[in-house]
């Protein structure tokens, strides 16, 4: 195995990125490529990711697959790195034209899908798509979460004027904080009908609050990404829906594309790997089921 293609994710401590890495690992095995799995330890650690990129370039690999943690900040480092090796972007963009190829899920679009899902769930429960809703964000300062929020708020404003965002809260990356915020929101806003928890950790915390208070019928929650816990919540009706991306494919195709680029083959400049709304109704779908149960090993 002399071909090395490192993959740099945003945060190795999150389940989502572990699935991306699992995909990349599988691709490495299938294609006979050595795939070092790199990444910062928090999505907000921009400087850490830049350093990792620099170190990866120093190892002169065949190509690098990266998911830029911050649009603007990674622009120059990616430009710089692209001088030495081809760079393939996954998941999120960066302020650079140097990417050889790009496989993204549009987080803004993901936010929109969440808004649609939430509106639908509320309508199903109350018969009309109006009422008070809230959004809870895992941590401030994380690019993809801001984009999800932007898409969500934008869609609500333009398509569902009856839904009123009464609270827009930030937690500190802790599920229990999400849980605390949610219980307090329920107390402070008895008329709350819906919540968007824009990542996995918040979906876990918020879901727990709903479960504790047995409000699954009354307050509809849309989460983002999935794991065993949140899928369980979905089955129990605690969560109304999950916006699920295809991280496994992103990792797999990222490496595959990178290998092609390194062999100077022609590749598509941009690929959208898409985001899907999963509800209790479509969970059993084989395609969705594959998304919910990625083969990590």
């Amino acid at each position, binding site marked *: 195995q002399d071909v090395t293609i490192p993959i740099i994710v945003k945060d190795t*401590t999150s389940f989502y990125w572990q699935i991306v890495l699992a995909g990349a690992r599988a691709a490495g095995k299938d294609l006979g490529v050595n795939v070092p799995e790199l990444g910062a330890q928090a999505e907000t650690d921009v400087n850490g990711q830049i350093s990792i990129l620099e170190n990866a370039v120093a190892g002169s690999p065949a190509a690098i697959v990266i998911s830029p943690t911050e649009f603007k900040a990674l622009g120059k480092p990616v430009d710089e790195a692209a001088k030495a090796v081809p760079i393939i972007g996954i998941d999120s963009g960066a302020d650079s034209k140097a990417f050889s190829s790009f496989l993204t899920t549009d987080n803004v679009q993901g936010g929109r899908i969440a808004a649609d899902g939430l509106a639908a769930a509320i309508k199903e429960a109350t018969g009309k798509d109006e009422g008070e809703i809230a959004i809870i964000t895992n941590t401030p300062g994380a690019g993809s979460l801001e984009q999800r929020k932007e898409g969500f708020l934008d869609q609500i404003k333009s398509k569902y004027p009856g839904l009123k965002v009464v609270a827009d809260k*930030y937690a500190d990356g*802790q599920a229990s904080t999400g849980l605390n915020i949610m219980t*307090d929101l329920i107390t*402070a806003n008895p008329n709350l009908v819906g919540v968007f928890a824009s990542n996995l*950790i918040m979906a876990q915390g918020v879901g727990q609050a709903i479960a504790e208070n047995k409000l699954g019928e009354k307050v509809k929650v849309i989460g983002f990404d999935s*794991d*065993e816990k949140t899928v369980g919540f979905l089955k129990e009706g605690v969560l109304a829906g999950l916006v699920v991306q295809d991280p496994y494919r992103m990792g797999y195709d990222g490496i595959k594309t990178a290998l092609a680029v390194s062999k100077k083959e022609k590749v598509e400049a941009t690929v959208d790997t898409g985001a899907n709304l999963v509800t209790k109704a479509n969970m059993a779908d084989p395609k969705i089921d594959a998304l919910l149960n990625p083969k990590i090993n």
Partner: protein
Amino acid sequence: MSVETTTEAAPVPKKGMNILFGLTLLGLLLFLWLLLGLSTNSFWTSNNISNLLRQGAMTAILAVGQTFVIITAGIDLSVGAVVGFSSVTIAWLLAHGVPLWPAIGITLLVGVFIGAFHAFGIVRMGLPAFIITLATLTSLRGIGLLITNGSTISITDESFANFSRADFLGVPSLFWMVIVVAIPAFVFLHLSRWGRYLFAVGSNREAARLSGVNVERTIYLAYILSSTCAAFVGILLASRIGIGNATQAEGWELQAIASSVIGGTSLFGAVGSVHGPLLGAFILATINNGANLLNLNSFWQRIITGALIIIIVYFDQLRRCGSR
């Protein structure tokens, strides 16, 4: 190292000063509650009070454990990581078919072991507490992540997950856990000789040793208690959020220390109580709960928390000096 305070400080505690101070903090807490009761109409609902008690419970237990360590003039930065790690431990054990009670026992034992390791580093290897606990903080998160492979372990045991939601006599079970920890802690710290030894070691290690206090054992005791409290909180957290996740409880060490200091513990050692940190933790929880109820911007919430910490500790300081 000996900071002289012959003139400025040298607080001669008035009779019952400690209790008085505790009362004043209690006063502050009640004042906050009154204020929130007036400015929101949801604060004084039984539901919200339950929430509040639940929200403060974990920090409160951590703060009590931390206080033992701080009284010996040490510090335990690892408690947040221990909480996260313990949540992983119990989730892993449950996922591997270990029955609930043994799993709880093993997790607590892991806590004991971590505390003993800290004390070993401090006593035998001569490391500063700050450093050894900082190192375990880093390593434990790594080990936890390795076990979970960076993700989370779901807990399927229903009775376990239900525990943290349950009430007993109308009071949330999590708050009962605070009481379960606080009463023996109070007896230990304020009524038993080992508590006195903690204070003596924090005040002057050498004098304590020459007086026949087993200094090393006392330090082991303090760190083991702190880590075991943290492991206990890890179990409660796992029950509350239903998962084991090594990155949870990040920064809780600072919250625990802050609660302890707000509760009148001195970071120089030899000053502290059990009721103080409890009140401190619930004051912090009230600030957060109140901010949420008032729908305060999350950023303002941070600013206000910082400012309140300064104000509370400042008035504590004033009161102590003023009472001379």
